[in-house]
């Protein structure tokens, strides 16, 4: 009698599993789809019933239970450790059985997950490499968890043993969690790389253990391999130091062209430069480029730089917000609007305007005479303001809007809604990419331990009255302390929503003098979105002679005439 070929047996087993577990597989697909839909709904609606129901954790728990249940039922149906099972006498062969189950688990668990998540990955401008990396992460995570559950099930000959092994696995995970882990920002990416390497190792080990338990039916060897894998994987992950994720910070490419002019500007000078202060100006900046001072302080001998009291346009974030744009960015937009337009702005509320030079000296506890003896260093970060879109403001009121900023980053707006006694527009910067394959070419600049991430200006332009309002989109800080910043990142996948809300009020003058209604006001406005795109960091040194001109001597007060 001739044995059926291997592949048809594998397919046959897979089909048998599908017939057996079709209901659970369908439920898995539906639950996955619902969870994905729910994730999108929760962030695109605010204050909705769905949001109050707070289902997120529970959906994750339900998915985990369902996934584990599916694995368990699939493997335990023909548990290799249970000699009573029918599988040992079936003309199937353990190898084909194992492969058939693997094929089933891939098609029933991972393929639906890939399909559902694939829908979610659309619209982010991601390339093939990113899609492959994201898919790989899903397959790795799914197979790892699946292989773990399958190995446990294969090792257990009864439900009771299965529970005992599961508990041991949970305890082991708990012990692993308790082990001290360096969670600093610097170690974050190398730990992520380590976790990928560790997980890949664990995947191979667990699959091998499952194979050993199923095909040659060597339970003790399988248990040994599984234990070795579980013990070694965390160590490999922690020992891994190579970080391929962290990108270098960007250096300003036009640095050689950048220069400073010091002293009071000569009215005859046709290129006086962009003023940081009236006596300190920058030349060579691009048309739409804006320089922000990260640090400005003297270089003191035998002391680290920057010293305490150093001046910065980008002070530490006090209020849990991640927006840092300031008046210079708004001013850079003036040239795109009528010159007589009346400008107002709502920018970062920890920025109260640039300090005057005497105030800078005061913060450094320096007198002018001391200050002009020193070399000073100026660390700048340059951003270029780029227009993303200009739309009628009505479009923001009535429909959701989404703008692709660059591959992996999207700016999303909900329509305005009457929430908490005000018109509010909620939205988010949505980042989606592989966490282990960087999508950006460089790392954002850091000022005072704060990452200067993507920032945006929303400019409302009243066409008729020529009144403009620049709103720095008030993104919440990405620090983990603030719960409104919703971080949905999962294993090796970045899926983050950095939220914000913009409130709108019609101007009182238009209401009381012009009797203009809210609708008329909305229809009269155009809204433009501007993105501050980083161009890089640059450092400039100022000699004592230059500083003597920057810190010009105060004019003596005229004596009162008798």
């Amino acid at each position, binding site marked *: 009698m001739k044995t059926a070929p291997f592949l048809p047996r594998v397919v046959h087993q897979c089909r048998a599993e599908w017939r057996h577990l079709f209901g659970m597989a369908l439920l898995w697909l539906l639950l996955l789809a619902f969870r994905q839909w729910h994730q999108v709904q929760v962030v695109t609606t605010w204050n909705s*019933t769905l949001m*109050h*129901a*707070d*289902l997120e954790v*529970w959906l994750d*728990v*339900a998915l985990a*239970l369902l996934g584990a*249940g599916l694995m368990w039922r699939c493997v335990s149906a023909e548990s290799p450790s249970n000699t009573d099972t029918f599988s040992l006498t079936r003309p199937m062969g353990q190898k084909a059985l194992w492969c058939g189950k693997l094929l089933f688990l891939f098609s029933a668990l991972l393929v639906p997950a890939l399909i559902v998540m694939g829908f979610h990955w659309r619209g982010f401008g991601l390339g093939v490499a990113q899609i492959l990396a994201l898919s790989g992460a899903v397959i790795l995570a799914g197979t790892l968890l699946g292989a773990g559950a399958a190995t446990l099930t294969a090792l257990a000959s009864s439900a*009771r043993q299965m*529970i*005992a092994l599961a*508990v041991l696995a949970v*305890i082991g995970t*708990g012990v692993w969690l*308790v082990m001290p882990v360096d969670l600093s920002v610097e170690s974050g990416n190398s730990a992520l790389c380590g976790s990928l390497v560790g997980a890949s190792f664990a995947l191979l080990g667990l699959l091998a253990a499952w194979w050993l338990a199923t095909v040659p039916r060597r339970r003790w060897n399988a248990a040994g391999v599984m234990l070795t894998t579980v013990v070694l994987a965390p160590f490999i992950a922690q020992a891994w130091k190579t970080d391929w994720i962290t990108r270098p910070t960007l250096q300003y490419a036009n640095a050689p062209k950048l220069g400073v002019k010091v002293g009071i500007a000569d009215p005859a000078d046709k290129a006086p430069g962009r003023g940081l202060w009236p006596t300190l100006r920058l030349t060579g900046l691009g048309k739409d480029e804006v320089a922000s001072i990260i640090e400005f302080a003297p270089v003191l001998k035998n002391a680290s730089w920057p010293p305490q009291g150093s001046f910065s346009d980008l002070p*530490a*974030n*006090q209020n849990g917000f991640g927006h840092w744009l*300031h*008046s210079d960015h*708004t*001013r850079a937009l003036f040239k795109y609007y009528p010159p*007589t337009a*009346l*400008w*107002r*702005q*709502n*920018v970062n*509320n920890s*920025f*109260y*305007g640039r300090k005057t030079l005497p105030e800078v000296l005061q913060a450094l506890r320096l007198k002018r005479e001391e200050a002009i003896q020193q070399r000073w260093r100026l660390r700048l970060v340059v951003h270029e303001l780029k227009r993303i879109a200009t739309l009628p403001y009505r479009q923001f009121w009535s429909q959701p809007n989404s703008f692709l900023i660059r591959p992996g980053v999207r700016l999303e707006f909900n329509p305005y809604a009457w929430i*908490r*006694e*005000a018109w509010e527009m909620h939205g988010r910067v949505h980042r989606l990419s592989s966490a282990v394959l960087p999508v950006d070419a460089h790392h954002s600049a850091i000022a005072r331990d704060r990452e200067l991430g993507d920032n945006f200006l929303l400019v409302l332009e009243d066409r*008729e*009255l*020529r*009144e403009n309002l620049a709103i720095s989109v008030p993104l919440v800080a990405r620090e*983990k*302390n603030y719960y409104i910043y919703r971080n949905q990142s999962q294993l090796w996948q970045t899926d983050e929503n950095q939220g914000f809300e913009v*409130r709108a*009020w*019609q*101007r*009182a*003058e*238009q*209401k*009381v*003098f*012009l*009797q203009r209604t809210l609708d008329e006001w909305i229809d009269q406005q155009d809204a433009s979105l501007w993105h501050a795109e980083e161009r890089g960091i640059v450092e400039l040194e100022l000699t004592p002679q230059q500083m003597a001109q920057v810190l010009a001597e105060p004019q003596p007060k005229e004596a009162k005439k008798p």
Partner: protein
Amino acid sequence: MNLVLHQLRKELRWLWPRWVVFFVALIYDFVVQMQWVFPFLPKPDLGLPSLVWSLPMWIIAWWLLMNVPPEEHGMAFRVTRPLSRVQYWLARMLAGVVLVMLPAMIENAAVLLAQGRPWMDVARGVAETGIAVAVMMLWLLPAGTMFRGWEKYAALVLFLYGAIDGAGSIWMKLGVVHRQAWWVMANASLMHRGAAIMGGLMLLSAFWHARRPMGRLMRLAIPLVMGMVWVLPAQFPNFPNEIEQPVDEALVKQFTRGKEIEVRSFETAKSLEDDGLPLRAEVRLEGIPTGIAPYWRVEQCRIMQDGMEVKEAPRTRFDTRGDASNVDALPFQMPFTSLLPSSFPSDALVLMQGRLENVRLAMLPTDLKPGKPLDLDLRLAADWLRVRELGRMPLKVGATIRASENEVEVLEVIVDADNRGHERKGALTLRLRERHVTFAGRNEARPFMPVLCLWAADKRLVWQQVMTGLDQQRGENHGWMTLQREVTFLWSVLSPGTGVTKENLAQQELVWIGGEYLGTSRHETKLSNVDIGDGWRRKDQWPETPASLTPENPRVAFVEHVKSLPKPDLKASKAEIARYIAAVYAAEVTYEHRENLDEDLKPKWPGNDLEVAQMLAPYFREQPELLNGTLRKGMRGWYAFTDCVAGQVLQLAKIKGCTPSVSQGPHLTQYLAVRPVEGQTETFQQRMADPLPGLESREAFIQASIEAIRSGSDEPLWRMSGNHRARTDEDVWTDFSKSISAGNLRYLAKKPAYRDKSVALARREYEHLPMACALQQPERWVLEAAVALGDARALDWLLRSVAMKDIEHDDALQVLESAHGAMFDVQDPKPEPKALRAFQLDCRKWSAKDFVYDATKMRWELKTEVKP
């Protein structure tokens, strides 16, 4: 009995492998409670409620108690066994006792003993854990018969969802006032009672299921509903529980019985965040014993205006912590020093951040008719707190206070940073480890959490308001809670005027104040003709612009911008003129920082708006009714600008008597007319230069101006002030009785008919002042009146208050000027801003001993030897 034991053995045989899991969970809970794993971190990222740490252990306990052998699910097996139903359930209960209750009790005892707690506390902890498990068994044992296999896990997940998330969102959606879910879970007494109700229902369901087996869907719906039933009743604010039981209701009855409450000082204030217009007032009750304070709240408020009932603005917040917990808010509402005369001297001042809030009586709708008085039918409740000092310690690392039921230790003293890790000059942050008794029947952390105050004896200042950081908790459900957190005093500690420096920190003291909820009293009152004044501010304000876009002189930029606007023809349509005026006013708001003051309190950008006003005036003259638009704004500078503009319009219209102001500068206008008034010649002078007292009078002025411009006559202006006559003494007294001031007091004190009663009123109001450093109007004026009366304690109070006034605050100049006037009564010439700044610096050095009081002139004079 043998059969019971037989069944028990069977249960144990079935359950022991699962019990091993529970035992491991119990050990895990013990080591977590002891902080042998997951110890408190210096800078935590997350603060989890204590219960969360024990939740895994309890979930496993529930799973264990729900487990029954598969053969016992079917009725056939059970009814054919030679075992009565009573014996079966007795055996199952015994199994629960042996496997869960006893180990959990032992674990609780171990935690308390390891912490060195007294045996009485250990006994109580053990008993409460026993009760908790007994209550759980009430619903878990019957539940075991309803769920088999995977259904148990689904039931547990659904149950947890119902309890944790399902309940709160229902109340929120229904708009019903309810306790916050986390507050319910922190209250063991509430949880026990809620579980008992749910247990009864679960028992009934199990009986029903035994008689008429339910389908799977129905059975799985039950744990979801039961989870909600566990928490829902407990979320009702009035659901009884041990922790919120009044301690001495009889005492409350004794000192409140037959006493009338006084509701006074009504005010309406509004911010953009409010959903309506809050109506606030001060509520007083005389004869409250020392050490006791009320938290006033409104239970019912019926508002009538013009004979019509006014409906309150609908509330948007429905979550609460229950009535008794209101007392926990008192440290933010009133100074505690006067409640504890044995702990603090009588002149100790508390540095309270922000305004001391009066009782919010109602949230009025924003479309209420302005200017019309209200009739109020009020039912108020007072939740009473009795405070006591728990102990005191020096402000240094390692200092400890140990009371019988509370402990606190200072782990770190952090200067110039808040508990979020942000640099803040002058801030003081303490990292504390606290321990409190938290049994279900005896809780010293709820409803009132002890308050740690900072006491600076040198300047007799107290800090009692703190911003708390993330709480790291353990053991709340074991009877003694351990808590680690960082607290930052809201008011800067190391700021000028406080006398506290980095060098003398250890000389300051920390005083720990505990409290207990005595009970609640209820009071009714009717108030008629309540004048809500002119606190009307509309919602259509534009959010403030924090930074200037024009680095140059904003006054010049304002003029330049107005000049750049295309000017309509004077005969253009009203809409076109309105557009121009709106554009000018928009610019006015944009450049409002032209009115900013420098650090010497002098105008940073000297000048005025005369040039712009002259550009606008012709258009208002053409369309005077557009002046009505100027009334609809409450932002800084708007009124001053309108005063300037309206005056120019009146001058341009050549209204008789309207000329450039002599006293206030030529940009403002004075109206001066002399007319005979009822048999006598009265000279009346109306200066448009002064800010008018309120919206109503401003409305009258604008209406009169519009009529005057239209008619070209000053008759409407005269008519507006037609009732004006020289203020009689009675008028002054009426004003004084409504709003006490040092100036009017000095005037009335010279009038024999009014002297005694005005002095008595001022003294009475002074006695009621909260001992807070930064008083707002009208309390600040009462303090100034007391200073004018020669009260040295009041003078000391005022000096410290001025010394610590934030000079960057909008009202700084006004406060300094007013205080200066109260002390020295210098009217002409008024002190210059620079002199006032120097006055503030002097106040940091002076005390009442440096002054002598001149009773004749009712003012203070600096002793000669103190004068520089």
